[in-house]
């Protein structure tokens, strides 16, 4: 038990200082019936570093790492190259093992990187202000809807059929318990929905994803105007944040709140978490915003410094009246995002986005030429939907047997919807080589024959 420094002699001497005969007597407030006399049965005893490593590495070895095979998976989680410097820096103990910066004099490091993170998020989304991150894109989306309800004092949210199904589900779960209405448009694989028609005078917000779940990218300017004309807010969700290196940002299209999944920048796939939820809005809504905020100030000597601020919105002061019950963020993932974004810079972020788009265009052209495959998305960034002549889930399983992670069958996220069973989502990033694309094309040909 190498992490526990007390020796038996220490324990004896400390018990003497306290004036009790044994540690057991320190547990005397526990009802006798609930006190355990010995270690709990059914669990293993402690193991050394070598054994633990062997056990857990054994489990890791049973998984197929996406980077070890041609991989085209997306649908809200993307495999990008993360520069080595990112992981090195976030593993510095002063970052890794620090807590929430409650004492600003000794946490200026954390506070400054959060301020930089907030600025980067505001810049790439085209918004005024951002918070210091939430759990992930899906929870940011639900929080945005609840914020729109507070701002507009209305309680009906309209969700696009091109919004990620998880974002829809998480929002619907919160709606059920928090007590607001959700109108979810049907899955919109072709990009034809008319969201403005669903907005009425009870609608607090419209949530639309760009690029959409099925790939389409759209200009939301007209939608924003229509939504605003009815007194509602436009929330734009971005599931692939790299797209913001190339596309007109939601802020320039009239969004009131932008939420995004930041995993693509700085963070590994991690089987779905931890990820980092981005959240940005207009200046006028700052005091309605959920989550943690870092603000600039001066110290007693007039020097610039940073503190956590506007905490009067938060749970520890407002309790049941708080804007949200969230009391943590994704600090370390936000740090990874910030470092990766700093390495990319203006030049690199734009270039990364262009490479992603170009790779996807190459792949789409390649797949469109195959018999039994039709590209459905008429526009896209780095991910698009294709219609196969067989159920996509079966094809994906066949490809996996051949050592190819060939994309996400839409049925995985829309189970039971027969109309979507033939759709496959395929994503390409800068990590995909020509050889990967060859493998997918020939694998698909084989699986569809």
């Amino acid at each position, binding site marked *: 038990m190498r992490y526990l420094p007390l020796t038996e002699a220490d324990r004896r001497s400390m018990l003497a200082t306290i004036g009790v005969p044994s540690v057991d007597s320190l547990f005397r407030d526990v009802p006798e019936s609930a006190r355990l006399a010995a270690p709990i049965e059914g669990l293993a005893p402690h193991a050394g570093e070598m054994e633990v490593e062997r056990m857990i590495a054994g489990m890791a070895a049973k998984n197929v790492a996406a980077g070890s095979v041609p991989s085209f998976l997306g649908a809200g*989680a993307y495999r990008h190259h993360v520069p080595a410097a990112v992981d090195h820096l976030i593993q510095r103990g002063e970052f890794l093992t620090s807590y929430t910066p409650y004492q600003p004099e000794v946490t200026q490091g954390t506070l400054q990187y959060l301020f930089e993170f907030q600025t980067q998020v505001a810049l790439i989304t085209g918004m005024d202000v951002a918070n210091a991150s939430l759990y992930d894109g899906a929870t940011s989306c639900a929080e945005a809807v609840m914020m729109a309800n507070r701002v507009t004092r209305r309680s009906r949210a309209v969700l696009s059929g091109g919004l990620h199904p998880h974002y829809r589900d998480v929002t619907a779960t919160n709606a059920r318990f928090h007590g607001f209405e959700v109108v979810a448009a049907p899955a919109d694989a072709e990009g034809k929905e008319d969201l403005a028609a669903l907005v009425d005078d009870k609608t607090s917000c419209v949530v639309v994803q760009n690029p959409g779940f099925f790939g389409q990218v759209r200009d939301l300017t007209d939608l924003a105007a229509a939504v605003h004309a009815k007194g509602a807010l436009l929330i734009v969700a971005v599931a692939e944040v790299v797209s913001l290196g190339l596309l007109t940002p939601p802020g320039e299209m009239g969004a009131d709140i932008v939420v995004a999944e930041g995993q693509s920048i700085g963070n590994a796939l991690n089987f779905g978490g931890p990820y980092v939820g981005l959240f940005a809005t207009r200046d006028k809504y700052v005091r309605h915003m959920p989550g943690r905020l870092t603000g600039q100030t001066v110290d007693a000597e007039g020097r610039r410094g940073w503190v956590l601020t506007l905490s009067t919105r938060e749970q520890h002061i407002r309790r049941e009246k708080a804007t949200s019950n969230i009391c943590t963020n994704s600090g370390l993932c936000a740090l990874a995002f910030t470092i990766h974004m700093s390495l990319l810079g203006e030049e690199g972020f734009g270039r990364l986005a262009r490479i992603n788009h170009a790779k996807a265009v190459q792949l789409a052209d390649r797949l469109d030429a195959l018999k039994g495959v039709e590209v459905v998305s008429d526009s896209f960034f780095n991910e698009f939907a294709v219609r196969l002549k067989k159920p996509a889930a079966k094809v994906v399983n066949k490809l996996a047997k051949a050592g190819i992670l060939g994309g996400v069958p839409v049925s995985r996220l829309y189970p039971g919807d027969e109309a979507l069973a033939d759709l496959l989502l395929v994503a390409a990033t800068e990590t995909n080589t020509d050889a990967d694309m060859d493998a997918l094309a020939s694998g698909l040909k084989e699986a569809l024959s």
Partner: protein
Amino acid sequence: MNTQGRKTHVDALGVEGGGAASAAAGTISGNRALMLEEPLIFEQDSPGTTGVDLPKPPAVKSRLGAVRERGRIGLPGLSEPEVIRHYTRLSQKNFAIDSGLYPLGSCTMKHNPRLNEKLARLPGFSDIHPLQPERTVQGALELIDTLAHWLKTLTGMPAVAMSPAAGAHGELCGMMSIRAAIEDRDGSTSRRRRVLVPESAHGTNPATAAACGFTVDAIPADATGRVDVEALKAKLGDDVAAIMLTNPNTCGLFERDIVEIAEAVHAAGAYFYCDGANFNAIVGRVRPADLGIDAMHINLHKTFSTPHGGGGPGSGPVVLSDALAKFVPLPYVVHGPDGFSLVESGADEDSSGKEFGRLKGFHGQMGMFVRALAYILSHGADGLRQVASDAVLNANYVMASLGDVMTPSFEGPCMHEALFDDRFLKGTGVTTLDFAKAMIDEGYHPMTMYFPLVVHGAFLIEPTETESKQSLDAFIRVMRGLAERAKSGDADHFLGAPRMTPRRRLDETGAARKPVLRWVPEVERREAAE
């Protein structure tokens, strides 16, 4: 650079601007040897520079439809060495558990083993996609199932929901579970709307209850720092959905009457939610199921030591009693004859039909699961019991060693944290905040201050089980010294603290009054002013 209109260091030194307020550094740069002044990343822009080598994008015909390409974003350009220096310097301005004792009560800042970091980074965990075919992620599902087994066994509970992303998210999950169970049992929750929450609860408890559509009713504490059982019983009725209790509570005490409370709550037809933030005080020695609890979240970062990275990520699985076991969020892992699989929707054949939907994208905080399981296996059933014993022993040792110079709020024994209040500072002119700032100059991160609210000027000290006796003795010596200094009339020492930090006390009121939440380029700020 001085793009924020702040005083430059040169100003501050009086070399240029005569700012006599501070000549603290006495250097031209404002740097103090290893403590370097560091501008924002945006103030280090070399346009056109980048820290990554990316190939030229292949030439293709754009498929962006009607969307225009964006113009300039405003991100700075830096090379890799510049970025590494910047973030290394920032790191040096942080206190961390790796730097020293971090006695932040209720936050449980214990040692973060690096083995756990190594294992979480194995490509078999870090480089797997959440929507890969299940056959290709059997080891990941096995790890989640193994961790779930430990959490259930350690708590004695039959079920666990793994997906919540943090402790407060776990609270939300548990209260949703309770509400779904009541709706299932009674047809609706229209009658049971009230949730009882002690005054000493974490601020997230009432916020969570409200987020679940409940109204909150506070229960007072009694003179011993525990829930007033009679007051609680008087508030119970058929309009109460649940009680949310923290045990061990935020005063650092075990709720002695917890079994009686649970029985009364159940007799009233309500459920018992326990905030498990302090589970590390009892792990291996008490099973929450034996106390009558229906739902409890476990902060993996606290009890099982996943690093907190400046405030997250966390992970907050929720254990559930038989009554609540079916009312869980999606997705979850099941084990069948063909191996492990995920129940991702109510349409799944393994679904109970009682699940209440998703709480987050994908399956949970996998990276945290790996770290927590590594910590658990390293300790084993025997070691985890020792974790609780040592955490409690260390806290009581601090309590006993400081009890004569500071004022313990309640009679002991305490659990894993020791609560003092500011009575010992009466008449000195020194506040809890001043005392905390003086601790910083001594090389310690302060304890949690002014919480719990039930005592005035609280000092909540949590040493954790990973501190040695030598480390505690050094801390005790400093705390005694400061207490004696305050009592000796040297208030100035405290009011001016901290003096040795990269920044002195910061103006928090000003920050909130005119919030500056992002950097704005000089040009834009000038334009805005005109």
